[in-house]
């Protein structure tokens, strides 16, 4: 076969020092000469193991053995060279290519590894280690085909320990604890029969115990008795703490892992990442500690993109401003606090609004769920989406808007997306609801219920009330694609059709809405209590609502039919009328556009998102000269939850002109929740507030305006002077009016104010 692999390059960082790798080998493709060295390593005799590998490296003639010995010694550069030579010497040997591929896996170069595994399979289609290699990479990417590959390996070799461990890990990650445990039990039998080290199985068994609520697992002692320096006995369960969102507990276990195995680089990296997620009281100190562990991880494993990205993110935190705020009642010394981390370019602009919303959400959710937060909350807003993505997953490219790590909320900032693309206020409200559902249940709340409460709270108490359900969700409802409540988590974790995650969000929100409507808000609270006690969804529903999950599903189905039956029936004619309205508008046929838009709104009035017929109706009224009807239509659009910034700005302008200042203020305050980076918004809102005698609030708007460094500096100083004047602070009035006139000596209004204050 052609030596395509010859051209593969292992990308090695110069800074990487050789470090003895701890890796348990179960496969028969590892040269037998290495067994004694491996055994010394497995039992914690690291010095002996090192001497043993060195001896092989120096004296063994087989380049394949040298490659393995070099790899075990952590000299990846040398290992790569030996593997390259080995492939040239044994071009038809699938095992050599697979082993080389595993070296690439170790350095996070999965694409190169996949090529080598595939080449191995071209040589020997049944080469189980290569199939398992593909499966392990696929598992890391959460691909559907992983299980098929693992099954193929087990069909070829039912006693393949690596395959059983991968299967067990996947089952545990998916919450199928019993299934995972069964695999582990079988794997343990095999390794005992073969005299292989049981360490990884012990670590996964300890994870099973953890998932079953047993924190002091006997498997830990057994593993440490076998090898006192086996850090994975803590790091593996820590991973399951992470995926069940218990970051602090995870960090503690990672700490234990690196204590007994200081060169367990992955644990240092995970410790760093999870420290950043779990401690909301001392963020500065936590960042420093996380940075130390990540830097240490980088020294040992400079190939991890997650480590490198997170270190870069930490460096970029210098560009952020961290502010700590006391309780909403103004008690600065109160504990817990609200801590904001905002980019320095946005801090002064966004801080008042973010702080107000966080404080309001804490007050609202504490009241509605009977749970007081006992620790501080951190809200971080990232103007670069990729920074947020790295904060969340260590890698750029995720499609989320926000994420909650218990007490910490991280999200895209307003400027991370085009204006009006997302309603940042709603996103923050949603994430803050997660803070409550996670903390109230000690992070034991299932994903669906946490999302459901967040969506329900968006709709019922958020800054943009009203249901906002994407059209494709109605289609999914019409096609009977909603899941039974007990299985709803699967819609988030293992979606089976496009957009199922969004459908699941909406279903979860509707379920919480249904529970609150039928059994009262306190039932949601009761569900949280039961989750905290460790009950599953079926049990929590039975205990909280007094119905079986099946009865619940049936009643929920009736609720959905009652709520959305008409919408579903009207969906097609509504779409036709709406499209016709926009087409007529494009042609300037305004009477027809008005008629079609009116029909569309009659059929589905609550649709206020992109392409809403309400907006074309406004334009049609304007074009037909009926300004009053246009105003009323805009009002109705907003009342139903419409939030397009341009439409709301237009509405505010019309209200202001018609003397409805108070309503105009409310509308502009809505705009802040979606598009706060408009100078004009703050100027207009401040002016209206000042006119309404709300000078303290006007001052906030003018201060935000000043922070935006507007083009017209004289005006902003004059506005600030006016607000301070209304607040009877003569010194600050004078300071700002002089500033305005220093820039623009002929500024008539500022001159008037100056004359007034010096008289």
């Amino acid at each position, binding site marked *: 076969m052609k030596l395509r692999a010859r051209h593969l390059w292992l990308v090695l960082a110069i800074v990487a020092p050789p470090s003895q790798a701890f890796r348990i080998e179960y496969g028969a493709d590892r040269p037998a000469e290495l067994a004694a060295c491996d055994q010394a390593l497995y039992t914690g005799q690291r010095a002996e193991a090192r001497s043993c590998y060195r001896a092989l490296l120096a004296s063994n003639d087989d380049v394949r053995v040298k490659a393995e010995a070099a790899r075990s010694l952590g000299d990846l550069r040398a290992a790569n060279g030996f593997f390259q030579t080995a492939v040239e010497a044994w071009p038809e040997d699938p095992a050599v290519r697979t082993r080389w591929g595993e070296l690439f896996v170790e350095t996070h170069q999965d694409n190169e590894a996949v090529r080598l595994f595939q080449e191995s399979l071209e040589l020997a289609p049944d080469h189980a280690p290569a199939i398992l290699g593909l499966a392990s990479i696929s598992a890391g990417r959460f691909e559907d085909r992983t299980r098929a590959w693992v099954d193929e390996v087990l069909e070829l070799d039912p006693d393949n320990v690596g395959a059983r461990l991968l299967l067990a890990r996947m089952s545990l990650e998916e919450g199928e604890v019993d299934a995972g445990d069964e695999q582990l039990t079988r794997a343990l039998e095999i390794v005992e029969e073969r005299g292989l080290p049981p360490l990884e199985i012990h670590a996964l068994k300890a994870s099973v115990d953890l998932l079953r609520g047993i924190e002091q697992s006997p498997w830990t002692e057994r593993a440490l008795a076998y090898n006192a320096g086996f850090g994975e006995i803590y790091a593996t369960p820590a991973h399951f703490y992470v995926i069940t969102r218990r970051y602090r507990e995870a960090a503690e276990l990672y700490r234990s892992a690196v204590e007994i195995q200081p060169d367990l680089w992955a644990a240092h990296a995970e410790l760093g990442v999870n420290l950043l997620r779990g401690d909301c009281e001392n963020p500065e100190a936590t960042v420093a500690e996380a940075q130390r562990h990540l830097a240490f991880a980088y020294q040992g494993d400079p190939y991890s993109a997650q480590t490198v990205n997170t270190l870069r993110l930490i460096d970029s935190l210098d560009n952020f401003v961290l502010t700590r705020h006391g309780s909403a009642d103004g008690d600065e010394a109160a504990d817990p606090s609200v801590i904001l981390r905002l980019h320095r370019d946005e801090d002064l602009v966004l801080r008042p609004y973010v702080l107000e919303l966080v404080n309001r959400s804490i007050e609202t959710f504490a009241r509605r769920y009977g749970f007081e937060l006992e620790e501080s909350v951190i809200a971080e807003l990232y103007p670069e989406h990729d920074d947020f993505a790295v904060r969340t997953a260590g890698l750029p490219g995720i499609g989320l808007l926000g994420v909650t790590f218990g007490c910490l909320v991280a999200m895209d900032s307003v400027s991370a*997306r*085009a*204006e009006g*693309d997302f309603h940042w206020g709603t996103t923050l409200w949603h994430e803050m609801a997660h803070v409550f559902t996670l903390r109230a249940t000690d992070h034991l709340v299932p994903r669906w219920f946490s999302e459901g409460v967040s969506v329900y709270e968006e709709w019922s108490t958020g800054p943009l009330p009203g249901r906002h359900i994407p059209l494709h969700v109605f289609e999914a409802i019409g096609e009977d694609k909603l899941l039974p409540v007990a299985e709803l988590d699967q819609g988030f974790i293992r979606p089976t059709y496009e957009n199922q995650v969004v459908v699941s969000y909406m279903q979860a929100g509707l379920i919480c809405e249904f529970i609150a409507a039928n059994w009262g808000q306190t039932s949601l609270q009761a569900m949280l209590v039961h989750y905290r006690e460790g009950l599953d969804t079926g049990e929590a529903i039975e205990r909280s609502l007094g119905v079986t999950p099946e009865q619940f599903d049936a009643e929920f189905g009736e609720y959905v039919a009652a709520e959305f039956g008409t919408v579903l029936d009207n969906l097609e004619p509504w779409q036709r009328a709406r499209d016709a309205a926009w087409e007529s508008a494009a042609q*300037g046929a305004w009477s027809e556009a008005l008629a079609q838009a009116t029909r569309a709104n009659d059929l589905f009035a609550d649709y206020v998102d992109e392409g809403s017929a309400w907006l074309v109706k406004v334009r049609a009224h304007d074009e037909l000269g009926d300004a009053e009807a246009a105003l009323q239509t805009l009002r109705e659009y907003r009342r139903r939850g419409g939030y397009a910034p341009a439409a709301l700005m237009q509405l505010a302008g019309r209200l202001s002109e018609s003397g409805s200042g108070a309503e105009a203020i409310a509308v502009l305050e809505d705009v802040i929740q979606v*598009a706060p*980076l*408009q100078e004009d918004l703050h100027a207009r809102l401040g002016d209206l507030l000042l006119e309404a005698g709300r000078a303290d609030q006007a001052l906030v708007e003018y201060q935000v305006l000043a922070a935006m460094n507007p*083009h*017209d*500096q*004289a*005006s902003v100083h004059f506005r600030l002077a006016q607000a301070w004047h209304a607040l009877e602070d003569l010194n600050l009035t*004078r*300071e700002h009016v*002089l500033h305005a*006139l*220093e*820039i*623009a*000596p*002929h*500024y*008539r209004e*500022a*001159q*008037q104010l*100056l*004359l007034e204050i*010096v008289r």
Partner: protein
Amino acid sequence: MVAAAALGSAVRMSAARVAGLCAAGLLAAAPVTRAELFYLIVGGLGGEALYDEAFTAQTESLAEAALRTVGEESRVAVLAGADASRDALRASLAELAEQTGEADSLAVFLVGHGSYDGAQYKFNLPGPDIDGNELGELLAAVPARTQLIVNATSASGAVLEDWSAENRTVITATRSGAERNATRFAEHWAEALSTDESDLDKNGMITAQEAFDYASRKVADSYETEGTLATEHPQLAGDTAARFDVARLTARVADTPRMQALIDELVGLEGQIAELRLRRDELPIEDYQTRLQGLLVQLALVQQQIDEAGAQ
């Protein structure tokens, strides 16, 4: 003393005169013998309803600003729609070449689409287009010594260098001929000539520099807000923009001896304020503010008298 010949002119010549003409900008149309400002506004071919509508609106808005500024229709030439042909443009510039003298000023606004094929810029007009070279020559033939040429079309950056000349400010919507997408600059330029937001010194007059700064910022903001890559980068060449009053926001008032005396007083105070500002870092802040306040109060009182006299 402000030279009579300069009153009403669009261009202010020195630091002291800058201050003086801030007030002078309030004065009524000057006698025929004075230097005058002439406008030529051309709305090019839209090609489709959306652009035709936009270009017409922008042209109208610019024409209103021009008329508000000079107060005489005879000094505002507007070519729009089907009338904006190459021949009509040639004729208008020829007429301006006849009509204006060296002391006069000329402001030309070109709105619409432009194109650039790598060698030649063309301004798209109903019928045959006019190319950048010919337009440049026609503009050069207008004797008005001080000129402001605003080419707000796509690809307009292609003529920036060629059209640059002494005492001429050239503003283009794009950085080069390679920026060929329809531009937004004209919309914001027109807005700049009608809003006090662009009048940074609040003297009631918008200079070309103020309007350019305002419009450029608005253009950049609009792309940033949309989260899209900016396809136009406005440019300014020439050193007269800060002295070229391109639009008036306030009402014109009568030119009388009493008004002139008040303006002289105002100019004197402005000079003192400018001097004080230069000493800002030398003085204790309280001292500086006290002195500044004193001068500003005096200036405000004089300004009041000017406004009252003007209103009578």
